[in-house]
């Protein structure tokens, strides 16, 4: 009975999570073809061992060399890393004070504040990104506002630039940064700060000496929760970014849907996965440490 309990989700995940990655790997080693599906070789088990051997021989690393050849790809990887890292930083900058404010708010306010943070999280991601189109466009709300108060004399182009992408990522991923930090700060023992002040620190010094180091687990969790998905983001660069905004998620999408080059798209995915393996493992290690620390 226990075996069945383990087996069902396990098999599901193997079939629908792990095996697909194997397939992506295989296709990344295949060649583009004008067929349906648009790649070759195709594994045809009816041709027996001979067919299988031939199948293997046709696989090659061509697509991977292509990725290194064409500038687009490695530039896109780098650009994605840069955008994800900077966005994570901005999200931290905006999110930490919010989490801190929530943790220091009076006890009876906190459930309401939690509600206010969680509500955007449950609202459609797509809609929240869309909202910024109306704000950042040349005729958008922001430009109108700045023109109205006389700060600028002509609309500034923000939409369809990298800046819009930074704003978009920070905005949509904010709850993911605030919640872990808030969870950590909330558990902070107030008497530690009192002890620090008792020993001679000012409020600011106590903050840097006590609060910041102890908030590290939450900060790390929040950063991972933003950085890792942001790296492969598609929707935000697609809607808010320009045609020269290079993010690997967008590149993968276009390879797949516009160019119909599935093998290259697969190779792009595999490389992205390899880049992410290290952060993912670090994230899981951090979570494990948190769990063991008896949170």
């Amino acid at each position, binding site marked *: 009975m226990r075996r069945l309990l383990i087996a069902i989700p396990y098999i599901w995940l193997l079939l629908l999570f792990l095996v697909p990655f194997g397939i992506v790997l295989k296709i990344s080693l295949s060649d583009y073809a004008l067929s349906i599906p648009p790649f070759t070789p195709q594994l045809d088990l009816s041709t027996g061992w001979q067919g299988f051997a031939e199948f293997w021989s046709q696989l090659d690393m061509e697509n991977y060399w292509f990725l290194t050849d064409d500038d687009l790809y490695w530039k896109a990887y780098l650009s994605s890393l840069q955008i994800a890292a900077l966005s994570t930083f901005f999200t931290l900058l905006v999110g930490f004070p919010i989490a*801190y404010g*929530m943790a220091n708010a009076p006890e009876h306010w906190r459930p309401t504040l939690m509600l206010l943070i969680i509500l955007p999280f449950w609202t459609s991601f797509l809609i929240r990104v869309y*909202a910024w189109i109306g704000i950042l466009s040349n005729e958008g709300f922001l430009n109108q506002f700045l023109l109205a108060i006389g700060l600028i004399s002509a609309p500034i182009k923000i939409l369809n630039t990298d800046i819009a992408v930074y704003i978009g990522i920070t905005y949509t991923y904010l709850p993911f940064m605030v919640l872990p930090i808030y969870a950590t700060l909330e558990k902070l023992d107030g008497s530690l700060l009192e002890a620090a002040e008792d020993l001679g620190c000012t409020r600011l010094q106590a903050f840097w000496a006590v609060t910041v180091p102890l908030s590290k687990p939450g900060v790390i969790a929040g950063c991972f929760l933003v950085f890792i998905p942001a790296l492969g983001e598609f929707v935000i660069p697609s809607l808010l970014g320009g045609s020269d905004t290079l993010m690997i998620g967008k590149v993968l999408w276009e390879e797949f849907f516009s160019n119909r080059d599935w093998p290259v798209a697969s190779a792009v995915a595999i490389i992205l996965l390899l880049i*992410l393996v290290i952060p993912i493992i670090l994230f899981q290690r951090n979570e494990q440490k948190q769990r063991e620390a008896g949170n």
Partner: protein
Amino acid sequence: MTSFNVVSLTLGFAFLYIPMLILIIYSFNESKLVTVWAGFSIKWYGELLQNEAFLDAAWVTVKVGFLSSTIATVLGTMAAFVLVRSGRFFGRTLFSGMIYAPLVMPEVITGLSLLLLFISLSVDRGVFTIVLAHATFSMCYVSVVVSSRMATFDQSLEEAAYDLGCTGWDAFKSVTLPIIAPAVISGWLLAFTLSLDDLVIASFTAGPSSTTLPIKIFSSVRLGVSPEINALSTIIIGLVTVGVIVASITSKRALVRRQQETV
């Protein structure tokens, strides 16, 4: 509370909510030019509700949502059980890795890999494939929610159930499930929301005749702002707000009740 805190909270929440407020306000704008106010009107809502394509997509989305979240809840609860209760077993690290990885995996990768799977198996893409895809990545979220509830669950309750004659399934059905029900329901709601909101994975795994609402919205907004979308957004925001408030009141009551029970 210090003034710094007040300021940062006010600015922070303003940043979070003003974009949505703008969206809502302009959905009532008479003019098609979303950014020029021409008077109050609800005509965009009317046009939206008559738009067959949107209504069809909404229906598909809701169907997919219900099906996938129910499957995800069953599978995710099983997985949570396995993770919290089963000790070491062969392949446990892989299992736990597979459960937690989708939480941080970029959706383009998950979507691509699933589509390629369906192609290899010659499965026709349609509502069925979207449901499978959503169930797969949602079950991980359900599993996280349920396993964190299971971690604080008093195991002696299950032992008492066995002691009084329950089989494994009976103990789960009669004792464990009623008690963890709130967490299971939250898991379901989370899976439902994720499914409703998903664009990328649905784009990869949908078939020609099965468009979901996010896909429809995306193709509309690529061309720019549209007041119908504003109206749709307002409706969605409204529904979510009501849902979240109801859920929070219910869960507050449940928490109070649970605090009383675990004395």
